[in-house]
């Protein structure tokens, strides 16, 4: 009996081994690191597929930067440099022209681009304006589920002068017309997609999707988005514009690319002194990634994988075998308050938005409540304890940004001020020291503040600290965690559903320099005066939960400034407006800013030009062609 079982099991095992093995390629070069002149990078976010059309920026931006480059890119100091383009368009070089006004309805913004002569796809085909036109066609096609069209919908036309010159015309202001990854309005990732590769696939998929009785979404998914150039099943089909050529992808394991000799940007000195091959390995758990770094299996790590790890500890452990770079992430961790309370006004008018009982009872709509809470939290000790290297924030804009307002109220830890504000609001000490008050309709309510967030380690720590801090002012704190898939779901994230009625914690991007328009105001604007719909950005059932304003804060003055900033092309004037908005934010506190997060990357000693630097750089992979080992003659490029 046992013999039979054994035999069957071993047979199964052999089959499985053979099966598993058959999916691995055998044409790799052996060994790693400086000896082989390659680099192995650890990351914890694997892209779902490689197509340039859709997907989340977190998972896609890093790896796709190996195989693609946009019209422009940011360097580690936040300078915008030309990528596929010969120069970055600006009003001063005459490549950007603006005429008319939004109000008059005749606004037009034209941007001239010239593609580099030597810009080629990784299969040797020239990159031309044909690719640009095709990319726009796909991006705007109704059957293609690209996730957002904010910028492409404002494109009126693209005029191609010749194979290398084209002009994009917008019908509303696009402040970030030159920013990489989707802001131009072309492909979601890295602007331009290869027409000669995608066009036959696209036409066939559209035809199949439009056939009678076809399930269009499934057909597009399977035949277009999942086609070989995106899925990587056929390495030769993956064609990109970037410094490396796609070579291999073992899902759940690694992606490998090899250096392109015909790439138009060159590192200083001979190209053979720099890494010839890049392998990005994916790790699901931070601990595994950490173990691999400590055991020396990795040459470098990306900017997302080590979030929350203490850089001091990592430096201590790595000693002089590797460098740890700490850089601002551009993200501010915030506590958003439910603003769904009764008796709200907007620009002097009463407004009709949902009301949540708990938020209303706790007077969360009154700015004094929020001011009391921010002063009751010891943010100075919270920030370093929760997120090593983090700095306390008082704004929705990150420190160092051109629009950052340095004159804001710092809200230092002040228990007495907090208690005084709460007393003003009618709260008196009740049972067990928890505050209580009588509502207008005669009920006695206790100050039990609910807090929802995801169970990420640093957020759980925040909850635990807040609990202790808030007890000191008589607020009973009622935290709950939901998996990210639940917390960020429609049903949950929008306060208008009253699924959370106290505070919710997440991070928002906080720069204005070159980030997209909606992040300009920390997603806190409420109503677009140009549209007929009410409260466009306040997600609720009536507008199918669109918009990023989850707490429901609405302030007409803030909105006015937001739209003023949106059509202000002069960066200094725009920065002045943003500073004004921060004053409103800082007084009203629709969200309590906790701290600015930091990111860390590691690079083994000897690896040069692997750096992230600034928050706008977005990825440490921005200059992948310059990576190299000093042992092999590579030199610092900048």
């Amino acid at each position: 009996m046992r013999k039979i079982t054994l035999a069957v099991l071993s047979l199964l095992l052999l089959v499985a081994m053979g099966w598993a093995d058959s999916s691995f390629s055998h044409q790799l070069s052996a060994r790693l690191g400086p000896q082989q002149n390659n680099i192995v990078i650890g990351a914890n976010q694997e892209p779902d597929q490689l197509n340039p059309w859709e997907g989340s920026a977190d998972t896609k931006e890093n790896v796709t930067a190996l195989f693609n480059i946009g019209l422009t890119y940011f360097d580690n100091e936040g300078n915008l440099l030309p990528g596929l383009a010969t120069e970055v368009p600006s009003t001063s070089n005459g490549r950007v022209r603006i005429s008319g006004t939004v109000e008059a309805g005749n606004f037009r913004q034209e941007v001239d681009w010239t593609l580099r002569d030597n810009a080629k796809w990784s299969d040797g085909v020239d990159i031309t304006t044909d690719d640009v036109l095709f990319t726009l066609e796909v991006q705007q096609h109704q059957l293609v589920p690209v996730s957002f069209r904010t910028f492409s919908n404002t494109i009126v036309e693209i005029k191609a002068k010749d194979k290398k010159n084209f002009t994009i015309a917008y019908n509303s202001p696009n402040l970030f017309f030159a920013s990489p990854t989707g802001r131009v309005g072309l492909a979601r990732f890295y602007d331009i997609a290869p027409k000669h590769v995608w066009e036959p696939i696209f036409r066939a998929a559209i035809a199949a999707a439009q056939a009678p009785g076809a399930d269009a979404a499934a057909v597009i998914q399977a035949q277009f988005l999942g086609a070989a150039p995106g899925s990587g099943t056929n390495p030769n089909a993956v064609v990109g514009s970037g410094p490396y050529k796609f070579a291999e992808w073992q899902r759940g394991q690694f992606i490998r690319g090899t250096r392109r000799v015909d790439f138009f940007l060159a590192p200083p000195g001979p190209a053979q002194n720099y890494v010839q091959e890049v392998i990005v390995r994916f790790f699901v758990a931070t601990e595994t990634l950490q173990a691999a770094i400590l055991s020396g299996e990795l040459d470098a790590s990306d900017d997302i994988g080590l979030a929350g790890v203490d850089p001091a500890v990592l430096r201590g452990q790595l000693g002089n075998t590797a460098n740890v770079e700490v850089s601002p992430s551009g993200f501010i961790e915030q506590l958003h308050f439910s603003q769904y309370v009764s008796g709200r006004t907007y620009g002097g008018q009463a407004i009709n938005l949902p009301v949540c009982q708990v938020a209303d009872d706790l007077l969360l709509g009154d700015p004094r409540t929020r001011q009391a809470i921010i002063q009751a939290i010891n943010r100075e000790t919270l920030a370093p304890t929760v997120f090593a290297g983090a700095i306390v924030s008082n704004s929705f804009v990150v420190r160092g940004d051109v629009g950052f307002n340095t004159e804001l109220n710092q809200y230092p830890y002040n228990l007495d001020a907090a208690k005084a504000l709460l007393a003003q609001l009618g709260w008196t000490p009740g049972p067990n020291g928890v505050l209580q008050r009588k509502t207008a309709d005669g009920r006695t309510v206790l100050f039990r503040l609910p807090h929802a967030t995801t169970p990420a380690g640093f957020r759980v720590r925040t909850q635990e600290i807040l609990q202790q801090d808030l007890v000191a002012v008589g607020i009973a704190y009622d935290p709950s965690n939901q998996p990210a898939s639940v917390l960020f779901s429609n049903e949950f994230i929008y306060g208008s559903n009253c699924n959370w009625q106290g505070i919710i914690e997440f991070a928002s991007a906080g720069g204005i320099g070159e980030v997209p328009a909606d992040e300009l105001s920390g997603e806190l604007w409420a109503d677009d005066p140009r549209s007929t719909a009410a409260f466009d950005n306040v997600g609720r059932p009536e507008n199918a939960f669109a918009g990023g304003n989850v707490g429901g804060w609405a302030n007409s003055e803030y909105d006015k400034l937001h739209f003023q900033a949106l059509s202000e092309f002069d960066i200094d004037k725009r920065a002045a407006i943003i500073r004004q908005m921060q004053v409103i934010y800082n007084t009203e506190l629709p969200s309590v800013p906790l701290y600015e997060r930091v990111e860390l990357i590691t690079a083994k000693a000897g690896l040069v030009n692997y750096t992230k630097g600034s928050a706008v750089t977005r990825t440490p992979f921005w200059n992948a062609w310059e990576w190299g080992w000093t042992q092999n003659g590579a030199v610092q490029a900048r």
Partner: protein
Amino acid sequence: MFAYLVRRALQIIPTLFVISVVIYALLALKPGDPIDELRRGNPGFTAADYDRLIKLYGLDKPWYVRYWYWVGRAAQGDFGPSRRFGMPAAQYVFQYRLPNTLLLSGLSLLIAFVIAVPTGMLSALRQHSLFDYGVTFVNFIGVSIPIFWFGIMLMYIFSVQLRLLPAGSLQTPGIEGLWPIIVDRARHLILPVAALSSLQMASWTRFMRSSMLEIINLDYIRTARAKGLPERLVTVRHTMRNAILPIITLVALAIPTVMSGAVLTETVFNWPGMGRAIFDAIVVNDFNVAMVSLMFISLLVLLFNLLADIIYVIVDPRIRYD
């Protein structure tokens, strides 16, 4: 007997149907839909985008309608595309995940079985010996250690401190040649297999021991011994055959559980298997992938249950199904 088995086999179909309804309903009723994931990574997502996408994905229909479409296509072998990976969900699961899972869980179960059965037997035959106490103690450790914690400890010792073995993953990228690849693969397998097999090994040894002990004390064994049969024969023919009975049920039941339940080990050791695939698919609302893998696991469970019943009949002739 044969009729009974055929009946049992046929029962699998309606059971599977019920399971598919339950899972589909649970997935659909869970908060969140595939659009959430798209919106989260994309600032500037508008109401129009949401409307357009929800229609495009057919999510505007109620779940039972969608289930009906799904089951219609699934019956023809089409499990729909993975929203996330842009390839057929079945291809993703069976080509990229299943082989890894078979390798890891197959090896773990095999090793657990091969070690557990003789150890449990010996331990029972030499009850109250030092060996018995040693085995019992090790078993207790095996069933008491949280599996992910054990994995991390192994990793901490063997890859961080001693630097002997790789810290997870399937393979080292960039190894070539058949033999080096096998060696590399084996090195990567040691820690996850050790972690994954520990629990099964311990509990099987324990059960093997206890069912051996039970049988040793039965009258017919005493009779066999009294008849003067050689001890070896008594052990192998009379005791072992009967003692192995509960273990076989356990093994059959453990196979699918280990395949889907290895998510902790897979997470710690970065092993791209089915457990993690299912977990991720549910987290990011990639329904087709979740459905196809959950249905596959369910089918396996049902088949192995049937197998356990068959083995019961074969091994224990006293059981009759009429």
